[in-house]
C-alpha cells in the first residue's frame, strides 16, 4: 500500500469533513490529546459517542411515539445528545439538536419529528464518513495532523 497516497487521502477526507461543516474545532482539540501512548484516543471517544448515541436515539424514538408528547422529557434526552455531539465536534448533528430543542420549547410536535429525522440523517452521514476516515487513518499509519498544532 502506498503510504503517501493513503495519507493524502486521509488528509483530503479530513479537510472535506471540516469544509462541509460536519466537524468543528472540538475535533481538533481531541486530536491534540493524542500521543504515542494514546494513539487512538479520538477513535475511542467517537466509539463511545456511537454507543451513547444509539441509546439516546432509541429513547427519542420511543418518546416520540407517545401521545401526548412529553416535551420536557424529549428536551432532556436531546440535551444529553447535544452535549456529547458537541464534545466530539459533530457540528451538523449539534445544530439539528439545537433546532429540535427549540421545537420542544415551543411545544411543536411536528417540528420535533421533522428535526429528529433530519438529525438521524446527519448522524448517519457523519458516522459513515468518520468510519471511513478512521479506517484509512489506521492503514496510513501515524501522520502529521492536517492542521498545524496551535
Amino acid at each position, binding site marked *: 500500500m502506498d503510504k503517501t497516497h493513503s495519507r493524502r487521502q486521509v488528509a483530503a477526507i479530513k479537510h472535506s469533513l471540516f469544509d462541509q461543516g460536519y466537524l468543528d474545532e*472540538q475535533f481538533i*482539540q*481531541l486530536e*491534540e*490529546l493524542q500521543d504515542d501512548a*494514546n494513539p487512538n*484516543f479520538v477513535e*475511542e*471517544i467517537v466509539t*463511545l*459517542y456511537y*454507543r*451513547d448515541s444509539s441509546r439516546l436515539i432509541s429513547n427519542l424514538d420511543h418518546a416520540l411515539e407517545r401521545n401526548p408528547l412529553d416535551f420536557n422529557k424529549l428536551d432532556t434526552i436531546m*440535551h*444529553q445528545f*447535544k*452535549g*456529547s455531539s*458537541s*464534545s*466530539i465536534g459533530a457540528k451538523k448533528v449539534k445544530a439539528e439538536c439545537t433546532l429540535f430543542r427549540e421545537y420542544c420549547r415551543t411545544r411543536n410536535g411536528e417540528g420535533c419529528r421533522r428535526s429528529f429525522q433530519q438529525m438521524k440523517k446527519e448522524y448517519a452521514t457523519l458516522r459513515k464518513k468518520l468510519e471511513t476516515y478512521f479506517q484509512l487513518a489506521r492503514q496510513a499509519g501515524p501522520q502529521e495532523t492536517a492542521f498545524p498544532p496551535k
Partner: protein
Amino acid sequence: MAIVGDFFRHNLTEFLHDSPSAAPELHVLAVDDSHVDRKVIERLLKISSCKVTVVESGTRALQYLGLDGETSSLGFNSVNVNLIMTDYSMPGMTGYELLKKIKESSVFREIPVVIMSSENVLTRIDSCLEEGAEEFLLKPVKLSDVRRLKDFIMKGKAKEDEKRSLKRMRSIDCSPPPSATCSTISLPCDPSPSLLSPLSSKKARL
C-alpha cells in the same frame, strides 16, 4: 472544627513541601453523567499531569469523599482531593446541589469546586458563584481551560500555605471566623474567553 481545619491545612503543607523540586500532583475529582465527557475530562487532566478520579454522579462523588452519611466520615480529606470539577446538568443530584453539599462540609468546603456546563445561562452562573464555585466553565472544556485552572489552583494553594506557615510561626491564633460559609482563593483576575464572569476574589479564610 478548628482541629479538622488544622489537620487539613497540615495535609496541604505536607502535600506542597514533600517534593520541592518536582511539581506536586493535583488530585482532581471529576463528576459527569456523560460517558464521553468523563473520558475527555480524564484525558485533559492526565495530560495536565493531574491525578484523576472520575465518577458518574453527585451521589458517587459524595460517597467517594465520605460525605454520604453511610460511610462514617474520617473527619479529614483522606482521599486528598484538591479540586472538584462537576457537570451542572446531571440526573438525580445536579452539580449545583453537589456544590452546596461540599460547601456545607467542614472538611471539604475549602476545596475549590468548578462547575462545567454546555449552557450559558447567566442566572445559573451567578447562583453557582454565589454558592462558592471557583469558576464556571463552558463545555466543551478545552486543554487551555484545564491548564489555566491548574495554575490558578496551584498558585492559590502555595499562597495560602505560605500565609498559614507564617501565621503559625508567629503563633497567632488562626481559628476560622464563625460566619464564613464558603471561601475561595483570592487571585488576580485572568481574562479568558471561556470565563464568563470575573473570578470571584473573596478573601481566603485564615
